[in-house]
């Protein structure tokens, strides 16, 4: 944010967003009540959670699940529901150990 705050004359009309991938900057993790906790041991890397996550919050590195993007995960629970090996548990997000919106 610049020193002088932007006004209505400074932004594109109609709420257009003129840059690609800007949703990444908009952190929605603090909307969450429950958070998914992933058990790496049980995971077979079938990628079903990655396919189903509506918020692209399953982080994949080199073809393997490596964690959950808590800055954007909204806690919908779809990944936990879809996981065939039941290795994602939804737990109440107390703000400790991976605080809501605080990162992976």
């Amino acid at each position: 944010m610049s020193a002088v705050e932007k006004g209505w004359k400074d932004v594109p009309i109609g709420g257009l967003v003129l840059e690609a991938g800007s949703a990444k900057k908009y952190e929605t993790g603090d909307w969450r009540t429950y958070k998914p906790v992933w058990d790496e041991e049980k995971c077979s890397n079938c990628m079903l959670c990655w396919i189903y996550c509506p918020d692209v919050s399953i982080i994949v590195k080199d073809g393997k699940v490596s964690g959950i993007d808590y800055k954007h995960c909204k806690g919908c629970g779809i990944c936990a529901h879809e996981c065939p090996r039941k290795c994602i548990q939804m737990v109440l997000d107390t703000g400790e150990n991976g605080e809501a919106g605080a990162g992976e």
Partner: protein
Amino acid sequence: MSKRIAITGNEAVAEAMRQINPDVVAAYPITPQTEIVQFFADFVSDGKVDTEFVTVESEHSAMSATVGASAAGARAMTATSSQGLALMWEVLYIAAGLRLPIVAPVVNRALSAPINIHCDHSDTMGARDSGWIQIYSEDAQEAYDNLIQAMRIAEHPDVLLPTMVTMDGFIVSHGMGNAELLPDDVVKKFVREYEPEHYLLDVENPITVGALDFSDWYFEHRRQMVDAHTNVKDVVLQVAKEFKEISGREYKLFDSYKLDDAEVAIVVINSAAGTAKTVVDKLREKGLKVGLLKIRLFRPFPYEEIAEALSDKKAIAVLDRADSLSLMGGPLYIDLRAAMYDSPGPRVKMVNYIYGLGGRDLNMDQIAGVYDDLMKIAETGEVTEPITYLGVRE
């Protein structure tokens, strides 16, 4: 060469759409607008236009598809009436908020219930705060001319707002009148190619349309719309000037008829203006100083110019073909009373006549009676009945 022909309002509007040759038309039939899209569907199947014609399952879908096409970068149009416009409601606001320059003819028809297919203005009057520009037309000629001008107004970079062009259902849409149509190439040149600055199909410059806009920016985006509406008047006049060069026909923000030296005046919208002008002529022959002001641009409302034109009158009657049911009179009356509040000089006496609901005829005797009432008010300075239901059976 322009050609003067006998034509209905619907046919004239369909001809204008053929000449405009939009990229996409998504529409659903509804009386009395049906013919417009029916004629247009013929143009599509006969290869007379390049338009992608989307036959949808409802007006909600018609407006949604039009919004999608416009956001994608197409010049997109639709057309509707009455319940159809009501079903579009939600998406009307979206079209305006997304600043998509969609142009739509709307053929005025009463809203249900009771069910009715004939003319009044309750449909478009209900959409007056949707953010669309509204241009009203007295006859087929005006509907044709206004639709062509609407393309340039809506798509002007200082405006970028959807625009509806209205005409009276059946009276104008199905009534045979005479109108002069411009040559195809002249219209094509006038409306130009549509070149949006930002659009979804521009893969080199990806954008997001319709993103979530909370308390942090929504207010600013709505404020931008006020700015766009503020620019409309100048653009309307500039486009009218250019249109006169190709047609010889003159358009302004509103139309004055024998108004300058008039002591009393009627303010009216759409086809009733034609009947009222004939009454003005007859009364002028008797030496009575009567005049008329016909609304053209209703949204945004050119309130300063209209108030100035009326500020020296002794009494004004506003004729509304819709009621607001607020008990404060019809929508035009309410706006005009607010507009007159700051006009200089002594307060001008104003009265409202709600007429023609559901297609009830308005005849010359009734209009002459209104002028009669106005002259009495001018003489006595007293208003006994501010709101009259003209032509209703007691």
